[in-house]
């Protein structure tokens, strides 16, 4: 399987990443991409920029572990995860998850799964820069709940 995991400061080209994943692979019938973008405002307040901090080393390892878990759950032919860090301005992409499979359900499910985990388990922290100053983004209970839905009952028990 084609797997790409990259953390970088620079902007990326989502289309080129997805194309690289499927190039010359005749078995691929479905490609799903998720692109997370920096919005121009948060709670009605204009955003100047986002600053993304990460834990180098652990971030790559956590993402790789979840990509392996996705591969174990669904018959994937390709997975690409690109996550930026540093300063990101409105309209720019923050994260790309792209998945390829023979059929659409695996590609959709794996992309949603990886995004739910990136939101809650990958060691990244967002700070919003507004005209009034900087403030750390608070984790959302809704994101925890979304990640939790992927825990099968036996695994959830084992984790307790």
């Amino acid at each position, binding site marked *: 399987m084609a797997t790409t995991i990259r953390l970088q400061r620079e902007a990326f080209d989502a289309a080129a990443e997805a194309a690289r994943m499927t190039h010359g692979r005749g078995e691929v019938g479905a490609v799903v991409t998720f692109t*997370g973008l920096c919005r121009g405002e948060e709670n009605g307040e204009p955003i100047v920029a986002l600053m*993304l*901090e*990460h*834990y180098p*080393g*652990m*971030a790559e*390892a*956590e993402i790789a572990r979840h990509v392996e878990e996705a591969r174990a759950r669904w018959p994937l032919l390709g997975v690409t995860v690109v*996550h930026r860090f540093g300063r990101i301005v409105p309209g720019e992409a*923050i*994260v790309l998850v792209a998945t390829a499979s023979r059929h659409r359900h695996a590609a959709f499910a794996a992309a949603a799964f990886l*995004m739910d985990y*990136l*939101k*809650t*388990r*990958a*060691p*990244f*922290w*967002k*700070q919003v820069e507004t005209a009034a100053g900087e403030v*750390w*983004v*608070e*984790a959302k209970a809704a994101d925890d709940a979304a990640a939790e839905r992927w825990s099968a009952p036996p695994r959830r028990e084992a984790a307790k």
Partner: protein
Amino acid sequence: MKLLYFAWVRERVGKAEEQIDPPAGVATIAELMAWLARRGEEYAYAFENPKVIRAAIDRGHVRADAPIRGAREIAFFPPMTGG
């Protein structure tokens, strides 16, 4: 052992990393946070609500009751907000 701090934990402590050598009685992540909180007001501020702080030992998520013995690198940070 090496400690790393991220996001507002880093800002409150006032540094990104440091080497520490806690006494033998400090056996778990929770005890390490309590010990750190007594090191000065910046630490007291950073760890004033240890329940909201997450930890990793050698780059793997752990819970507050995890033993720290043998750890080379321990990180403290707020809940993650990536993606």
